[in-house]
């Protein structure tokens, strides 16, 4: 559409009806672009990452498991480096569980993303 508009701009003296036609085409193009534009981030309803119930369930479970796994992994590493076994594992596993719950709540939309809150 922009190509057509540019093409008519460079032409010296377009005939009247052709100019009118290209103007109408341009207006139509603008209106189409306006109508088809998807909602920008934050303005429209939030698009969720879970279009179906299975995907949603899978997403929530993996979010929780991932949090706990990260906590356990970090705790285990900390124990090995600092030699404070088993305290790193115990404490970080609990933190990991909290992070997992936070993940789930965020994924489920219970806690709103801070990006959307701020804007």
């Amino acid at each position, binding site marked *: 559409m922009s190509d057509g508009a540019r093409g008519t701009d460079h032409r010296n003296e377009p005939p009247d009806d052709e100019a009118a036609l290209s103007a109408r085409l341009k207006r139509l193009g603008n209106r189409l672009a306006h109508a088809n534009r998807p909602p920008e981030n934050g303005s429209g309803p939030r698009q969720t990452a879970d279009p179906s119930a299975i995907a949603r369930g899978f997403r929530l479970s993996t979010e929780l498991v991932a949090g706990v796994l990260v906590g356990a992994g970090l705790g285990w590493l900390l124990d090995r480096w600092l030699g404070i076994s088993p305290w790193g594992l115990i404490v970080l596993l609990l933190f990991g569980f909290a992070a997992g719950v936070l993940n789930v709540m965020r994924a489920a939309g219970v806690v709103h993303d801070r*990006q959307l809150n701020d804007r």
Partner: protein
Amino acid sequence: MAVDPIHQFQIVNWFPVAKIGNTEIAFTNSAAFMVAAVAVISVFLIGGTARRSLVPSRLQSTAELTYEFVANTIRSTAGSEGMRFFPFVFTLFMFILTINLIGLIPYAFTVTSHIIITATLALSVFLTVLIYGFWRNGLHFFNLFVPKGIPIYILPLIVFIEVMSFLSRPISHSVRLFANMLAGHITLKVFASFITLLGGAGIIGMAGATLPLAMVVALTALELLVAFLQAYVFAILTCIYLNDSIHPGH
């Protein structure tokens, strides 16, 4: 008769390519299917955009549909600024979608059913978010971990939990795709083996075998949905994570 639903995920070395130290790098069936996926995508997109006609052919209009689909996903989650990551997200989406769909063909190998593949993809997203986030925002990137309106005395605790939540992203990102594909293909295989097992048990077994057959047909349809859905979910989560690197906190 032995039923081995895991056998389909076995990696087979086809021929050695290089040798680094004592580790032999071989061209495996997994690599072959990745090359096949890239070839399919290239043929689809190059063929679809070769003749850019105003009235699109079927192939061109499908190619345009995939472009519009991914572009709209990015715009709605990461804003217009996210469009600079369009090549990245589009590549991930098309690669995963094609691999998932190829994996549904009987006797084909499903590359995404190996966690090393999905973990690599998820880590590439994670590193992109980290590197771009720091390059663009500098130390303001740490605002991501500091929610607003939190009393100062529990702030360290919250920040720590936020960091762990951030670190758990590549894990959940990769495990989701991997687990979906693995579970789906194992279920398909198990139900398919019921057909042959029941079919060998006389005329009553034959009649009973129609039940798992119906199940396999239904599951194949479900797997087709899952193949698309997981590629979409991977892409949209990539966008959400990239959004964090573009606008951390505020």
